[in-house]
């Protein structure tokens, strides 16, 4: 993995301005006042990976959220002796809202399956910036809650009949 060179091909807009445009597409940041979004965009960095690079690993105390600018990555879960692919992430996906708000260990691994460029913000940077905009905390929580709620709603709707066991642990939105 490697952060991008500072070179800008078009010569027109800076990496920061591109970051700003990207953040305004992500639900987590889109509702914020511009002055806060600017600071977040400024604090973001770029990382690029080659196919096969591990972006984060199960068990890591990784503290980053990432937005995939280009490329694809595979999410997997390792049990004692088997690895299960959960799903694929691609351009435009944003991962890690929870990691920004609290210290948790990764329960999954993410591996690049093609050249991947992503936008990254670390919890440290996010938290430090958030301290300067304390009014925004409820907004972030609200977005997170709705994300979890939508996730479970979708889960309940799309679950197939044969997954009786899944239902036993349903109710993540009730935590």
């Amino acid at each position, binding site marked *: *993995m*490697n*952060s991008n*060179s*500072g*070179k*800008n091909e078009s*010569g*027109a*807009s*800076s*990496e*920061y301005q591109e*970051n700003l445009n990207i953040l305004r597409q992500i639900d987590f940041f889109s509702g914020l006042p511009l*002055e806060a979004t*600017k*600071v977040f965009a*400024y*604090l973001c*960095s770029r*990382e690029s990976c080659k196919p096969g690079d591990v972006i984060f690993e199960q068990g890591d*105390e990784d503290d980053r959220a990432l937005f995939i600018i280009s490329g694809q990555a595979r999410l997997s879960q390792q049990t004692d002796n088997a690895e299960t692919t959960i799903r694929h992430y691609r351009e435009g996906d944003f991962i890690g809202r929870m990691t920004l708000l609290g210290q948790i260990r990764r329960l999954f691994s993410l591996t690049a399956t093609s050249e991947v460029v992503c936008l990254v913000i670390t919890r440290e940077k996010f938290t*430090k*910036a958030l*301290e*300067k905009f304390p009014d925004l905390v409820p907004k972030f929580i609200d977005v997170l809650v709705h994300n979890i709620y939508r996730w479970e709603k979708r889960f309940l709707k799309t679950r197939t009949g044969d997954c009786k066991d899944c239902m036993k642990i349903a109710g993540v939105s009730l935590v």
Partner: protein
Amino acid sequence: MGTKKTPVVQKSLFSWVLASNLKIQGFLVFIILITVFARVVPLEMQKRVVNEAINLRRVDLLLIYCGIYLVAVITQGLFKLIINYMQARIGQRALAEMRKELYHHILTLPLGFFRKTQPGLVVASLITELTTSGSFVGMAIAVPVTNILTLLAFAGYLFWLNPLLALISLSIYPLVLFLVPMLQRRANEQNKRRVDATRVLSGRIAESASGIHEIQGNGAFALENNKFDHLVDKLMNIRVVWTLYSEGIKLLNNFFTNLSPLLVFSLGGYLAMTGRLELGALVAFLSAQEKLYQPWKDLIEFYQVYQDASVSYGRTMEYFNLEPEHELAPSDRKPYDLEGSLEVSNLSFTVEGGIRLLNDISLSLKPGEQLGLVGFSGSGKSTLAQCIGQLYKYTGGQIQLGGKEVADLTKKDIINNVGFVSQSPFIFSGTIEENLLYGCMASSEGNGAKGDGTIPSLDDIIAVLQQTGIFIDVLRFGLNTILAQDRDQKLVETILRVRTNFQRRFGQELAEYVEFFDENRYLFFSSVIENLTFGTSNRQAYETEFIADNPEFVLLLERFQLSLPLLSLGIRLAEQTIDILGDLPPEEFFFEQSPILPDELDTYRQVVARTKKENLNRIGPKDRTRLLQLALRFTPGIHKMVALPEVLESLILNGRAMFREKILAEDPEAFTFYENSGYIFSQTILNNIFFGKMKSTNPRAQEKINQSIVHLLIEEDFLETIVEIGLQYQVGSKGDKLSGGQRQKLAIARMLLKAPRVMIMDEATSALDNKSQTRIQNLLETHWKGKSTLIAVAHRLDTIKNFDRIAVLKAGKIGEIGPYDELIARKGLLYELEFGKK
């Protein structure tokens, strides 16, 4: 307590006068006697000039008397200088002694004292409050002796001239002597209040400074300002009243002493008219009487200094008048070499208000056993650890270390046998090495056996660094060091050899993480100025900080057609940065990716405001320089708010070639250009090995690079040297240049280096990441088990699973104690801590 000298806090102010160098004081008195004599002589000469020389019209006598007068005046002045010098010496020496002794005393005071005492108060006491006492000691003999003698001499002279007049003019002084102390008592009251108010104020300042993150984080400016302003006003009022009283005393004194010439005039005038007094005698009398005034004023002032000093001194010493809870070192034996066994029986610890923090705790450990202390917060686990480490004096029961009662041990015994690491260990400003050796130095010092082999070797240090996992941090500090120009040649040569090997071995592999210095390419991780000069300046005027101010250089930029493009780059950088960061507090953190430094934010805000509507050509010269400075700092790989225009990129590359040509032609010594075969003194060791700069700060990239570098350094047998350089890294005040994890690792390394019989760790690994935590846990379980007894307070249970015993505390009592598996199987308190309520 031993039979030692009186503690400093119980010494009287006068004892310092006696303790000062009495020989000097004696010499002082001798000089004073001469001075007093020299003061009376001019008066007599004055009289003789009038009465003898003028009356008898004898020019020779006039010359002689004037000559004697002159000599007397010169002697007086000269001696006054000597007196002042010696006074200052005595005073300053006494002050220094007072400060040292009080400081030494304060360091031994019980921890509880510091919990309720603000550091600012200690600072104020040591720095400000003692100064008057110092001046007092300086004055204590010289001033009263000089002035009383002078007074007596003049008074005697007056009586000799005319007893009646003398009696009348001196009659005023007893009245003053009666009134002054009355006023002084009130001044003293105010002075006491002043000392207290100053103390509160300094405490508040220190508190705000150390809690500044909370204040800025919560935006509590108004709140803090109010508190502070209120205290300042209070102090101001007290000082006004105090000054009023002090000045009042002087005023009163002036008033009465000014009255006495009036008496002399009226009575002396009458006597002269009636011919009972010579005119010369009256003149002399008046002069002599005027001379009474100065010594008298000095005496009153001395009296005031004495009063102020005794108030501040008394108030200060009284505050610190506590005894240390434990003796520092045994007076009649060598410090114990204790066995690592621990026996706690019926221990209790009660604090003010009858709150029992620990209640009836009993447990025992054999040497080398490991005990984990767990429990919910507030259960007393840290308190127990601190009691065992003698940081708190327990109030009931016993703690025995190696069969000796902890309460009866001296600090020295504890220091030699116990290592303590707290959750937020204190790191002192200085180098990493100094901090590592702190424990060893402290325990070997004063033993009488300094340097008795207790100072660990570099190998020991490196072993401990590796064990605690701080090795890689120290290595990185070493690699990030910029060597001084005069560093020895061999080191430089080795680094150059490592560079060659690095390029051969890893050049390809790490190419994506490192941007190599390449004369023909623009370097995105180097600044514009580095890109332009592509070298290190050997002339101050060409150094990065000054170059924007260097007219020659500015002219060059003009010639390279870089002036305007750089100026507009500067403007865009300033505008964008101010737009993003303008409203944030100037904290270092937010400015890591900014070309503007935190303390320049205001300046550039103003520059932006001024230049906003201006045409480029009409920007003032000062703003031009500032904007140019910003543009020259611009490093596209770090400062992402602006993109480097491609035109500028090629212009700078052209400029690079032209600049080099010009320098080589005109002043080849001025720059050392980057060359693969030469060391670059303006860059870090790492950049020198790379012959380039690292592109990514990503931890994975870092790790990969670390691995390669360590590999290479080992092969070159160069690792130790770099670590040695890294050990000299300055950690900043309170270690603020280290991360929380690094501070904890350093503190643990510090303890392990001392290899104490008993180790106490109070949540000592809480700031470490999993890997480091596991590493230290393994180290303790494999390397130290059986060697040192370990008592570890743990927040996370997985770190103590393999300990011999775990004690679960609840509300100051031991709820259960035993090995992990046993307790979990019992499904009691530990089970609840681990898995939540059943």
